[in-house]
């Protein structure tokens, strides 16, 4: 169940003036500000000296983040159920499920690590199965049910896997944690928790650069035992 009754917000970020944007990036603004800045830079790259490091940076970010859509890009209507709530949006055909969640719906719990399906930070459940949301186009999932880390808790009550990760310190920096937890929920449901080795094998799609693996295994074991 979703913990919030709020409408999923649309993308109504006010435009930044470029001087504001440059200032904000220099003082390392919030993630939201950084995203807004990158969008802004991508959108105004023609104003930056061609060939300058900043224009290359802006171009690179535009490429890697999906960037601002060229006018020729197609957008299509898309309906999804996200964390129990019906959502109707217009998406650029190139939008991955991860970018839809983070950039358009502001559900920033699912993380962009590698953006190439190698780290698992973007793991979400679609129709109950775990997938890498960074390698799946949003439009493909029309009519499907998506559960993200934001949708696991029941109100203020943590999902048993979330509680177990807290109890066992299954993280350090926390960046991989939403993906680890979504993956663990599916791993337990699949029944791949009969031994430490089996848990390690079936959680191998979720990397943790902090190396919290022993605690993650302990957390999954406990959550699995409680749900059995």
């Amino acid at each position: 169940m979703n913990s919030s009754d709020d409408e999923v917000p649309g993308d109504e970020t006010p435009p930044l003036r470029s001087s504001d944007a440059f200032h904000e990036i220099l003082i390392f603004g919030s993630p939201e500000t950084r995203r807004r800045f990158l969008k802004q830079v991508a959108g105004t790259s023609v104003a930056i000296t061609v060939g300058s490091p900043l224009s290359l940076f802006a171009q690179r970010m535009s490429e890697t983040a999906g960037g601002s859509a060229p006018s020729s890009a197609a957008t299509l209507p898309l309906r999804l159920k996200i964390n129990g709530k019906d959502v109707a949006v217009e998406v650029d055909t190139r939008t991955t499920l991860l970018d839809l969640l983070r950039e358009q719906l502001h559900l920033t719990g699912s993380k962009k690590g590698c953006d190439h399906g190698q780290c698992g930070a973007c793991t979400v459940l679609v129709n109950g199965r775990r997938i890498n949301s960074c390698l799946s186009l949003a439009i493909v999932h029309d009519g499907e049910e998506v559960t993200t880390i934001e949708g696991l808790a029941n109100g203020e009550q943590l999902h048993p896997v979330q509680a177990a990760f807290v109890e066992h310190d299954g993280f350090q920096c926390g960046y991989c944690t939403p993906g680890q937890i979504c993956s663990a929920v599916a791993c337990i449901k699949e029944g791949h928790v009969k031994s430490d080795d089996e848990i390690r094998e079936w959680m191998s799609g979720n990397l943790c650069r902090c190396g919290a693996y022993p605690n993650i295994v302990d957390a999954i074991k406990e959550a699995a035992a409680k749900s059995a």
Partner: protein
Amino acid sequence: MNPFSYTRATDPQQATQATATNASAKFLAGGTNLIDLMKMGVERPTQLVDVNRLSLAQIEELPNGCGVRIGALARNSDVAQHPLIVQRYPVLSQALLAGASPQLRNLATTGGNLLQRTRCYYFYDPAFPQCNKRNPGSGCGALNGFNRIHAILGQSEQCIATNPSDMNVALAALDAVVQVQSAKGTRSIPIADFHRLPGDTPNVDTNLQADELITAVDLPAIPFATRSHYLKVRDRASYAFALVSVAVALDVQNGRINAARVALGGVAHKPWRAQKAEAALVGKTAGEKAFRAAAETELAAAKGYKHNSFKIELAKRAMVRALSTVAQMT
């Protein structure tokens, strides 16, 4: 990512009409490789034809005991755990589970896995100017570059890339048949003829035509495939591509080898059916001596490069170990 138009196919005929009329259209299934390559700028389709809603995900017995048909859209995770596959073709189940991660296997399809492109660094990153596969005539960056993961069998001076799939290695050992459909009709492609060696056209991975849609993969009935095994050797215990892999099925009666199926992965541009090794095994007494001799025969033509010559001995040892594992099964 380049802009593209998106079409959702409702039946195979409609899907193949789109690819027949647009040469730069591509089918989209799981997308785990295609979307990644589109992000990298390696693949630049102008149209994606989403085939995910087609009714091609069944796994079922073929009539008259002729084997098992796997629908092209059956997800790797579903194929790996299907009772017909687990019981009759354990080598395929094991190969699928050795590949990628649970999340990727939930997306990846049978048809898509057949079409996985190489993980050669020089192909995957357009920042490298040389790649005959990505840009024909530009040269091969791997030939004199960092070629640790590259081919030792069947390669050419134009390309030493390897096929990265685990599933394909098992399919090669099992003599699978790929069923395809286009606006022109249907045809069957034996797995041995599906993937190509690089030769002078490494840009062409398979003999599938651009407008053809894979609809299914058929596994023939092979009673002794219940005694089969997939061994994968890689840089870490899980979630890594094979340096060398071996798919084996053996028919052993009273200690004597009646029939053998052996295929190698991570060593060539296509899943490498080890026919010389198979011929060397038949009639021999199952044991390390025969296994080692067969491996030596198969790898006699192998050629290594600066960083991958270790694969030659590794492939031999992996073959001996996989064959020994199957020979000891009861």
